[in-house]
């Protein structure tokens, strides 16, 4: 059974671990997005780069997380960086696929009209291509965020300093205390769903034209 009394007595820990979870997720997703954006633009502009980029990020994705998280400890020590690097590496495949698909989805007639209207290449990228790629980029952010929130729990492997809500799972496993396992698991799920919904709202806000029946005010 679930011991709600225990949970009530550890609300402070819950808040701290939730914030830690969000922190690790944001840093990893932000860094993953930045790196992937660069790789994606490179892949779109120089198509020859796309194959290797996808192959390498796909290969990274296959590494078992239980092996990858401890891997960087000798190099970066027990720092946030050790937790974040694997999270970033796992996000690359999701990001690159979505961002490249986003740019590929920009209709060629739109690009031709932009060129014919006298956009500079840089202006076209910023004013036409990027906004039109945005729905799929944000879809990538949603996927990466949800997947990263799940993976953050594994960082508990590195010790009690990490793990976010995963800390409760690891501690619960050590003490065979079901309430803690439940709290960590459910908390992580709620967090993932909440973040996903928040990102949907962001997407609606940023791409009003993509919603059916939308009209600018």
């Amino acid at each position: 059974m679930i011991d709600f009394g225990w949970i009530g007595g550890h609300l402070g820990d819950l808040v701290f671990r939730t914030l830690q979870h969000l922190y690790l997720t944001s840093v990893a997703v932000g860094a993953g997005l930045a790196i992937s954006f660069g790789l994606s633009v490179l892949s779109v502009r120089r198509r020859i780069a796309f194959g290797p980029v996808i192959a390498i990020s796909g290969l990274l994705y296959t590494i078992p997380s239980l092996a990858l998280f401890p891997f960087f400890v000798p190099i970066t020590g027990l720092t946030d960086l050790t937790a974040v690097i694997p999270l970033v590496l796992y996000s690359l495949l999701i990001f690159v696929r979505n961002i490249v698909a986003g740019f590929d989805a920009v209709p060629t007639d739109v690009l031709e009209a932009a060129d014919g209207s006298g956009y500079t290449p840089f202006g076209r990228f910023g004013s036409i291509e990027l906004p039109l790629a945005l729905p799929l980029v944000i879809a990538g952010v949603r996927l990466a965020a949800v997947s990263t929130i799940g993976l953050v729990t594994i960082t508990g492997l590195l010790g009690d300093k990490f793990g976010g809500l995963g800390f409760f799972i690891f501690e619960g496993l050590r003490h065979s205390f079901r309430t803690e396992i439940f709290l960590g698991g459910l908390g992580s799920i709620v967090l993932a769903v909440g973040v996903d919904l928040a990102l949907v709202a962001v997407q609606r806000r940023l791409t009003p034209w993509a919603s059916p029946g939308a009209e600018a005010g």
Partner: protein
Amino acid sequence: MSGAASVTFDHVTKRYPGSGGAGTPGAVNDLSLEVPAGKICVLVGPSGCGKTTSLKMVNRLIEPTSGRILVGGEDVAARDAIELRRGIGYVIQQVGLFPHQTVVGNVETVPRLLGWDAARRHRRATELLELVGLEPSRYAARYPSQLSGGERQRVGVARALAADPPVLLMDEPFGAVDPIVRERLQNELLRLQESLAKTILFVTHDIDEAIKMGDLVAVMQAGGRLAQFGPPDEILASPASDFVARFVGADRGLKRLSLSRVDALELMPAVTASPGDDAAEARRRALADPFPYLLLVDAEQRPLGWIEQDDIPTTGVLTEELAAAMSPLLDRRTTLKDALARLVEAEVQAGIVVDRAGRTRGLVTAEMIFDWSRQTKAAAVASAAGADAVGGHAGVSAG
């Protein structure tokens, strides 16, 4: 900018590397032609004939392999490509509206790139939406996904006109809409052009559209060669080659008729009489005329119907009941092709031409249309021959 500027192709060639050089689809081979300011020149030909390539070389989306293109007498190669494009309107078949921008945002594209302030941009966009027949209060805030195909194309035209460019390039602009909308858009563009008087280069593969839209028609054939260049009437009356003759079609005689209207003909006067007129007098007048029918009209000269000469009573007065048959009513703006079609459809010898108030102005017969066709064709052939003599560049004034 505003006004219009001539567009000149001076021995322009575009070859694509790799495959067969001049034979590659889209290649252009030694194209020379001049479009005077304010005229619509239609580039027409089968797919792969290089017509779109030719168009895109004007705003340097494609660079020629050799030769020069002049806009307003100035070599486009000497101008900055980005600045050049901002000064040339560009409309494409798939429209290419920016889906993330509203209608008004799309129309403001070039003024925004040119750095106009917001108030001036907005004024101009509103003016243009009205010009293309889209009520600004209804359409300005919509996104392209909320428009019909015809509405999108109107926005595309408004966007191209936003900075009042002297030259407009239109690449199969009405190719993606249904025939009814296409005809309406064609008519609207022609109506706009009456006041805008832009120099328009218009690409299509549809010879009927070319004939309808063009002051000048450039027929292109595979390999990017110019097969014939001249006013539509000249191309129809005197195709320069078998290719052009086949391309314009076996019905080119009929197509020529669609270029002229009833007001080109000298109408045949009708023998008319009204109900209540003396029958004997009307009969005498009808029999004196070679046309075997008397046209019964009302007091306002509006046609009521035909009475065959022999059926006119010898005594008494004419009554409306005597009118046994009627003819199609034509007006001065009816094309000769439509006039002929309606004569055939109604199986009558003559159509009645009426004015705006419906009053009878005269008669048109099929024979008159044939005679007109024969006489004007001879003139067009002579004009085409004259054009050939100076290298295929002239014939412009005949437009």
